[in-house]
C-alpha cells in the first residue's frame, strides 16, 4: 500500500539517463551535483549516463563531453554512443583498450540515413558481439523490422531496447520473442498491467528500470515497480541486477 512518500527498498541503478544540453533545449539538470542530488531524492544509487550531444549531433564529440560528468565515486556509469563511421568506431575501440567501455548506445539508426541493416552496421555489430559489449537502442529511432531481422544475425549481442511507449504495445511481445538476448527498458512503457504480464511471459530477467531522465522524472516508474506483483528477487533484478549482469559490473 502507498503512503504520501516513497523510497525504494532495494539498490537501484537507473539504466537510462541523459546528461548535458540538447542542442534545441537546455537541460533542467545543469551539473553533476544536481544529477546526484536528484538521484539521492529518489533513492537511486547509480545511473548509466550518456551525453545529449550524442543523440543527433555527434557521438564522438558528445562522448568527449561525457567525461566531464563522471564522478570519482563511480555512481555515474558512462555509456558511450556510437555511429557507423570509422572515427566513431575507432574512438570506441580505443576506449575499449583502456577498459572503459561497458556498453554503447546507437541513436537515429533510421533518421541518420543508414537503415539498420547488416550491410550498413556489420562492422560495428560484429565487433560489439565479439567484444561482448552490450548495445542500447531507442526504439523510436529504428524501423522494427530492421531491428529484429538485423539483430537476429548477431545472436550473442546483448541489447537493451529503450523507450517502448504505449504506441509500441503490439510490437513488444513479438520483439522480445524474436530477440532472446534483448531486454526491455521501461521508462515510457505504461499499458495497464504490462510489467506483470511481461514478467509472466518472458521473466523478470528481461525487464530493466530506466527513467530517461530528464525527459521523464526519475520517480514514477520506480514507484510503479515497487507496487507490482514482482517479488523481492524479481524487483532487485529489474531495478539493478539485470543491468549489472549485462554491464558486467
Amino acid at each position, binding site marked *: 500500500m502507498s503512503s504520501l512518500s516513497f523510497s525504494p527498498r532495494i539498490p537501484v541503478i537507473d539504466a537510462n539517463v541523459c546528461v548535458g544540453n540538447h542542442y534545441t533545449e537546455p537541460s533542467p539538470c545543469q551539473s553533476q551535483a544536481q544529477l546526484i542530488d536528484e538521484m539521492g531524492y529518489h533513492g537511486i544509487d547509480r545511473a548509466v549516463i550518456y551525453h545529449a550531444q550524442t543523440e543527433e549531433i555527434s557521438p564522438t564529440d558528445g562522448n568527449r563531453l561525457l567525461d566531464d560528468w563522471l564522478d570519482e565515486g563511480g555512481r555515474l556509469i558512462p555509456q558511450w554512443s556510437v555511429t557507423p563511421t570509422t572515427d566513431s568506431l575507432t574512438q570506441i575501440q580505443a576506449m575499449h583498450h583502456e577498459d572503459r567501455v561497458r556498453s554503447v548506445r546507437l541513436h537515429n539508426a533510421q533518421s541518420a540515413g543508414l537503415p539498420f541493416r547488416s550491410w550498413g552496421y556489420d562492422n560495428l555489430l560484429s565487433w560489439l558481439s565479439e567484444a561482448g559489449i552490450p548495445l542500447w537502442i531507442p526504439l523510436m529511432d529504428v524501423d522494427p523490422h530492421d531491428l529484429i531481422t538485423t539483430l537476429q544475425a548477431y545472436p550473442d549481442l546483448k541489447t537493451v531496447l529503450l523507450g517502448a511507449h504505449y504506441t509500441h504495445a503490439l510490437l513488444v511481445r513479438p520483439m522480445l520473442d524474436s530477440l532472446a538476448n534483448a531486454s526491455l527498458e521501461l521508462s515510457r512503457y505504461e499499458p495497464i498491467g504490462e510489467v506483470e504480464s511481461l514478467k509472466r511471459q518472458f521473466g523478470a530477467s528481461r525487464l530493466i528500470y530506466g527513467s530517461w531522465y530528464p525527459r521523464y522524472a526519475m520517480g514514477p516508474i520506480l514507484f510503479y515497480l515497487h*507496487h507490482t506483483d514482482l517479488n523481492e528477487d524479481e524487483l532487485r533484478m529489474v531495478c539493478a541486477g539485470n543491468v549489472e549482469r549485462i554491464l558486467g559490473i
Partner: protein
Amino acid sequence: MIDGIRVIDFHGHVGRWERFGMNDNPKLMLHAMDAVGIDVSCLFHIFHPDGTTGNDLAAKFIAQHPDRFVGFAYVSPTMPERMLPELERAIDELHFRAIKLYPPYTPWPFNQTPWHPIYTFADERGLTIIFHTDHLENNRPRYLEDIAPMYPDANFVAGHSGNVPEARAEAIAAVQKYPNVYLETCSTYRMPGVIEELVEKGGKDRVLFGSDVPLMDPRPQIGKIITARISDEAKRLALGGNAERLLGI
C-alpha cells in the same frame, strides 16, 4: 486510501483500444488501483459520437463495481441533436457526475459555438467538464479563458494540463485568471518538475490526479504525485480532496 485520504482518479476510460494495449478489464484495473490505494476511478467512453452507446457501455461497466467507479457523460457536437437529451439522460438516469469532452474527434476548437449548448447545460446544473487538452488546434487550453467567465457556475478541467510545455502554460494561465478552471495530471509526458509547476503556479486546490486508466497503468501516474517535491497537503488535495469537492462525492 492513502494516509486517510480517499484517492480519486479523475481521468479514465471504458472501452478497448488494442493497438495501444488499452484493455478495460475490471480485474486488471482494480488490481492496479488496489496496489497503490486508488479508491475511485472516474470513467467515460469516448468512442461513440452519439453519446448514448458509449454512456450505456460505461454505465454497464460501472454497475459491476459501483463503489469503485464513477461515470462521466460523453457527448459530441458532431451529433448536435443528441447532445442535450443525452446529457439529461446520462446525468439524471445514469447518475453520471460530470462531463467529458474530446475535441480531437470533432472539427471544432472547443471555444466555438457548436460546443456552447453543453456549457450552458453544465452551468445550469453546476457540473464539471473535463476536456482533452494539448498543443493541437482544437484542444488548446487557452480556449478555457474564453468559456470559463461565460459559464461561472460550471467548472472546467484541462485534461493532461495541456501535455506539453507551451500548452501547459496556457492551462496554468487560465487557472490563474478564473476560479472555475482546474488542472488534471495524466500524461505520458512525465517531465520532471511538472507536478511541482502545476501546484506552484496553479495552486494546490486546483490540481486533480488523473491517470488515463486503462490506456495507461495508474501506478506510474500516481507515482508522479507521490514522488513530486510538493507538500503533503498539496498531495492530499490532488489525490482526492479537490475531486471530492468538484464532484460532490
